[in-house]
């Protein structure tokens, strides 16, 4: 019988599926470095490759895992990472409501897009709005080992979905220290138990989608030098970071248009680091609005304005005093993005131009000489992506 053969390659057998994605991008910038361009030429070091397996042995159990390799200049060099791997147990399910629990390494639901930010097809553009989805510290917020309880319920107003997680963030990335400690120190961070929750509502007519993500990420710092806290090695005493955050998300959908807006604040509370450098609490402010217009034959165009202030009480970076001589414009970025995309079956081709004022979201590892950063710069990005 023909039916015995799976028609689609991704169905491997009873309850087993495989899916994957691949993308290749190229970046050209007027100034500053993105994606590994070092001499002003185009950067081809923008690539994503992922594959997943899932198995549903019975309706109440789901086991799934995904491997991911990402290339993006100095911060991501193509190492294969375990993106997620967890067991999902449905606790209750009827036609109107489901609840369940997940255990393992789970993607962190922050805003609309964090869980699949590395899958080009699900992104709102070639790169994520950097204000909220800062690529410099993506791994820290992306996924973490832990446990989560989730559910959804459909009623007259629409579908309400929620999730609460306890997790331990992954803190291995060098760029993480550059963001939260201003440079790569001798010691290292250790992830501490953190929590994250999200609630979202989809209206019954499909026209509106809204959500709130709320959480607090925590980590400790362990000094690494043999001489302890020391101005010469710039190592600090042991300390800890707490990062309470919230994201408000809203989207309006019609057949031809999607209007998306998200607003977020993260407060950075650094404690006990000794006296070599004094951290004061500061709150980042991040938001973007995007209009997407769908056109016939798989075309779409989009316009986005994306704003990041690393300190909402010092938006121009004037009060930002540092012994590292980092420029004021490294404390903010305002990015106009105009893009277009065409979907041809499983292939997506995109192009977008950026006009940026500020350098806050540029990776320090790609731009080691802060003095060479240019405040106002332009970027052209092209991307081809395929999924199965």
């Amino acid at each position, binding site marked *: *019988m023909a*039916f015995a053969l799976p*028609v*689609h390659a*991704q*169905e491997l057998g009873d*309850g087993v*599926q495989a*899916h994957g*994605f691949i993308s290749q991008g190229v970046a050209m910038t007027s100034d500053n470095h993105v994606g590994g361009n070092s001499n002003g030429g185009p950067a081809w070091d923008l690539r994503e490759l*992922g594959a*997943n397996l*899932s198995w*549903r042995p*019975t*309706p*109440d159990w*789901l086991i*799934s*895992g*995904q491997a991911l390799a990402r290339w993006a200049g100095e911060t991501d060099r193509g190492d294969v990472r375990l993106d*997620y*791997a*967890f067991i*999902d147990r*449905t606790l209750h*399910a*009827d*036609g*109107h409501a*489901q609840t369940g629990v997940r255990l393992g390494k789970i*993607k962190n639901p922050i805003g609309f897009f964090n*869980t*699949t930010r590395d*899958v080009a*097809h*699900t992104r709102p553009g070639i790169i994520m709005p950097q204000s909220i989805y800062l690529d410099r510290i993506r791994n820290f917020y992306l996924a973490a080992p832990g446990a989560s309880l989730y559910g*959804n319920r*459909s*009623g007259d107003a629409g*579908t309400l979905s929620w999730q609460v997680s306890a997790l331990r963030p992954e803190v291995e990335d060098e760029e993480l220290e550059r963001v939260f400690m201003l440079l790569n120190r001798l010691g290292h961070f250790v992830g501490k138990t953190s929590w994250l929750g999200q609630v979202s509502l989809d209206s*019954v*007519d*499909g026209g509106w989608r809204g959500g709130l993500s709320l959480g607090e990420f925590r980590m400790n710092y362990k000094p690494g030098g043999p001489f302890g806290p020391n101005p010469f090695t710039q190592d600090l005493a042991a300390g800890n970071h707490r990062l309470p955050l919230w994201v408000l998300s809203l989207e309006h*959908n*019609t*057949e031809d248009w999607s209007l998306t807006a998200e607003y977020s604040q993260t407060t950075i509370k650094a404690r006990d680091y000794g006296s070599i450098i004094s951290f004061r609490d500061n709150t980042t402010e991040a938001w973007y609005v995007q209009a997407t217009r*769908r056109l016939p034959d798989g075309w779409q165009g989009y316009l986005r304005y994306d704003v990041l202030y690393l300190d909402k009480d010092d938006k121009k970076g004037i009060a930002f005093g540092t012994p590292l001589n980092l420029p004021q414009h490294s404390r903010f970025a305002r990015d106009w993005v105009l893009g277009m995309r065409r979907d041809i079956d499983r292939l997506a081709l995109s192009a977008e131009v950026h006009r940026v004022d500020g350098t806050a979201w540029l990776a320090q590892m790609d731009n080691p000489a802060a003095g060479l950063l240019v405040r106002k710069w332009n970027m052209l990005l092209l991307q081809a992506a395929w*999924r199965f």
Partner: protein
Amino acid sequence: MKAFLPLFLRNSRARAGGMLLLALTLLQVGGAALAAEIIANRSVTPNDLSLAAARSIFGMRQVKWPDGTPIRVFVLPDQHPAHAALCKEQLNLFPYQLRQSWDRQVYSGMAQAPSEAASEEELINKVAATPGAIGYVRKAKANDAVKKLSLE
């Protein structure tokens, strides 16, 4: 008929022709009206679904029938007229929203993807052959080896 339409457009005096064109356009739109019917394997016990249940099932969140049988969802390609009809008329969603929802779940491990059939004929055969299967076509025929599910 379509071959004559440009003639009407070229003739600026043909107001009657313009009226006819308008009428034809309206008729054409009426004739191409979207329609989709939800079908299921005959082993499936419910005879109707609530909107919430249909959205949960096609959204891949609800994966078993009330009697515990696994649900197998079969869909047509995103561009298929019956797919657009199911989304817009039955589920109150746009096709791109369902696609986004599937992709976000599939690539974060939260759910599995529906199985895709290339044509309505293939979809009917698969639904008929798979216990617990659900799908949709533009119009189910009386002699199809599947049952129709009505939306409450």
